[in-house]
């Protein structure tokens, strides 16, 4: 099975203190460290596991600049067969639709049976997977937390609010957005990354993948960020000041009152 995983590099929320820049329209990016968007990493792991079960290839693609190559190296070290960087000034400032348009161009240059995305990026809006599927006219399943391969089809599961599970059959080729928890991604250490340091990563521009520059980028974006801020802390915390036993009883009471205990 030929599998494509769309991944993104994001500031790692667990390793940064996210602050706004002076202009108030973006993060202060000077001292940020980045990593692969967490759900995307689960998607890569799932792709590798499917490949190891049924054979095939795993390609990881990202849209960005030179710096974004670091996550592709990491996914290569995990075991992806190849990685591609899509990079062009024309893409900068794209909205979700612009990103989906770019990916669509890349997908149509190859032959993929299965396309995986993370359920959403840490700073994203969970829209690219669905748009990409629509543009390709492929079936789409979101929030996937289990995949089994059947003859020409997949059986995919997702969790329904309240803890129930639903299983769906989906025809190939298709696009799936992958939920964290679907697997336990393998660890990639420095050694693994060093071992793939010399693997070439092709860079493709808009013209290479047949994307019309007018359909992507800031100019084409119809969704524009107008503000970005840290919400003011509101009152909502109730401090308990009793003894440990009293507090424990109070907590139980509160949780029960909110329907948390049955």
């Amino acid at each position, binding site marked *: 099975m030929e599998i494509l995983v769309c991944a993104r590099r994001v500031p*790692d929320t*667990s*390793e*940064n*203190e996210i602050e706004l820049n002076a202009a108030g329209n973006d993060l202060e990016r000077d*001292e940020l*460290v980045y*990593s692969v968007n967490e759900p995307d990493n689960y998607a890569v792991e799932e792709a590798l596991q499917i490949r190891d079960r049924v054979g095939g290839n795993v390609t990881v693609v990202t849209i960005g600049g030179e710096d974004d190559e670091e996550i592709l190296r990491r996914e290569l070290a*995990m075991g992806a067969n190849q990685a591609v960087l899509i990079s062009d000034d024309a893409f900068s400032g794209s909205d979700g639709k612009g990103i989906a348009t770019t990916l669509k161009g890349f997908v149509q240059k190859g032959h993929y049976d299965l396309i995986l995305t993370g359920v959403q990026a840490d700073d994203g809006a969970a829209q690219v997977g669905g748009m990409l599927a629509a543009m390709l006219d492929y079936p789409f399943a979101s929030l996937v937390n289990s995949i089994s391969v059947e003859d020409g089809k997949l059986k995919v599961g997702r969790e329904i609010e309240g803890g129930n599970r639903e299983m769906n059959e989906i025809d190939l080729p298709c696009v799936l957005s992958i939920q964290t928890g679907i697997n*336990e*991604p*393998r*660890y*990639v*250490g*420095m*050694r*693994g990354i*060093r*071992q793939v340091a010399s693997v070439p990563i092709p860079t493709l521009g808009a013209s290479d993948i047949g994307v019309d520059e007018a359909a992507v980028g800031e100019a084409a974006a119809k969704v524009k960020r107008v503000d970005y801020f840290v919400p003011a802390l509101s009152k909502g915390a109730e401090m308990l000041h009793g003894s440990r036993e009293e507090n424990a009883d109070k907590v139980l009471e509160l949780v029960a009152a909110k329907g948390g205990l049955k």
Partner: protein
Amino acid sequence: MVGNYSPAQITDWLVPGRNLFLTIHVLGVACFVYIVAKRLVPLIRAQRDFRLDHPLTRLAKVFKFWLGQWKHPRYRFAGTLHIVIFAGFILLALRAFSVLAVGTEHFALPGLNGRVGHLYDIITDYAATVVFLCMVVATLRRLVLRPARYAVPAKYGKDHTADAVFLLNLIAILMVADSLFAASKAAGHAQQGQPVESLAVLSLPWLLQIAIGSMSLATLWILNVTAYLVHELAFYFLLCYRPFGIQFHVETSLFSIYFAKLERGTLKPVRWGVPDEHLDQVKSFGVKTFEDFTWKHMLDFYSCADCGRCADNCPANAVGRPLAPRFITIKARDYAFQHYPVLGKSNNSKPLIGTIYSEDEIWSCTTCGACEEECPLLIEYIDKIVDLRRGMIDDGNVPQSLQKPLKALESRGNPYGKMEKKKADWAKAPEFQKTCGVKILDKKNAADTLYFVDSITSYDDRMQSIGRSTAKILDHIGENFGILGAAEKDSGHEVRRFGEEMLFMALRDHNTDAIKASGVQRIVTADPHAYNALKHDYKDVPPVEHISQVIAREVKAGNIEFNPVGNKDSVYTYHDPCYLGRHNQIYDEPRSVLDAIPGLKRVEMKRSRDRSFCCGGGGLMLFYEPKEEQRMGVLRVRMAAEAGANVIVTACPFCMVNIEDAIKVAGLEGKMSAVDLTELVDQNIVRQGRPETSETPKVETANFGG
């Protein structure tokens, strides 16, 4: 055969059996050589291990730990029993060989004839008797007393009692046969009026001689030949059976101890003989299959006597984690026997994780070293555990709980993912800054001494107090010191012990460069893990001391004086951190500091010094989510309560995390407290002409009054 032969001389009694005896000798020796050769096959396929250096040090180890049985009395009854049996075996060794030789020709060991020989006979008569009695006691102990540490939990296989008792009884039979052989000969001599060398009074041969003395000469002859045959068969059976189980240590222990690891606190390299810069060319890291173990580690598997002392002292085992060092060895030995059988072909190697070991088993170890400290045969565990972890890391097989801190260590240089620029924030607390300035070493600021703070003390709100107390102590004794600040990354001590060698090397190289660039003459740290890393894992850095050593020295020199302890009801106990105590033998300095504080009442926990009980482990172990029934720290806190203490003093920030948590979990809040040695010193130090600046609230040690 015996019936048709009438010997004129009793010395010829064995003549008619000579061909049989000789055949058994040849077969027995051949079998043994064959079995041992087969046992050596995996060792030849194993990884390299450099163990031929320092022959004199190694010989000294043999004298102390093999001949001297140094570790045995740590378990008084079993240990004494073993020392007696071992001494008996050593004494009987010559006798056994001369008895074996006697069957094929007239034989007396050179130097062991005449009076010396007789003396030797008397001694060995008693030795055989004592060994026999020990076997009876040991058998009863196994069958009746059944010490808990010999039990085999169902998940680790079948009970070993039957095998142990079988072996004990074989030795007992050997002793009886040996004694009967001597007794029947002596009885025969006496009946024929030949000169008799008296047997040792009240010894087994002596008693047997009395019992059979009135039997006919023919019966005695039959007894003599039978005893000889039984002795010979039992001897060779034992010799050839030992390589199949726990008694192989009789042969291998000498080698295991000679080749034992010499330096504490160190770890084996990824591959012996491969320098760091060539590690990229190594195809696979760590131990994944049995053949990835070094030959010495395989020898360890053969040498284990299944005494259970390691597991009995293992904190992971004590709290119900799925790890017992004993079974790391036993399972590997069973694997070796199964895959390298004496008869038949050796099998292909399979991954060990998922077959004989589980992932949780290998991650459960805190590398506290209690098992290694206890093992009478000096079997190594930490290197094996770390090698198995290196294998899992290399395969990407790492729990999610550890992946985040490892990733943060890679990108930020600390497991918490905190910003580098905040590394020195602990020194910027306003109250502290007023009394004690801490230099950050760079091109403009130089110092003689580097205080290496390490991640937890830099970033953890509670542990920052240890950093401030350490700085104030260094300031008080007039040390010209500074810190690296943002340029200091995690020492990587746990990174290495969790098997991430390449990440450790990156951290080490970064810190080494930063330390060298700072131009300091020496390093001080209050974190035993950093201390151990800088001392043993780093190369080419200035000498390093733990703060407890510095304080002890300054107290002795009169540069630090203490006010009397605040609360007279406080009873202190000192908890030895594993990487200060067992791994670096620093036991006395912290205690001497405590004892220098006037009025301080100090008690020892039952488990202290080299038997200290790990509080739960440091570094990455704080992130790992073990499967356990209770916390190590809770057990440790209860031990302190049992000793009558209400303040636990430690000298390690990780111990502080674990012990303070455990006090809460054990429900001892208000009754028990924990304090770091530096905090206690800082609180009680006499500062002439300076204001009292002790910042840790006195309530920590003072306000609960038993």
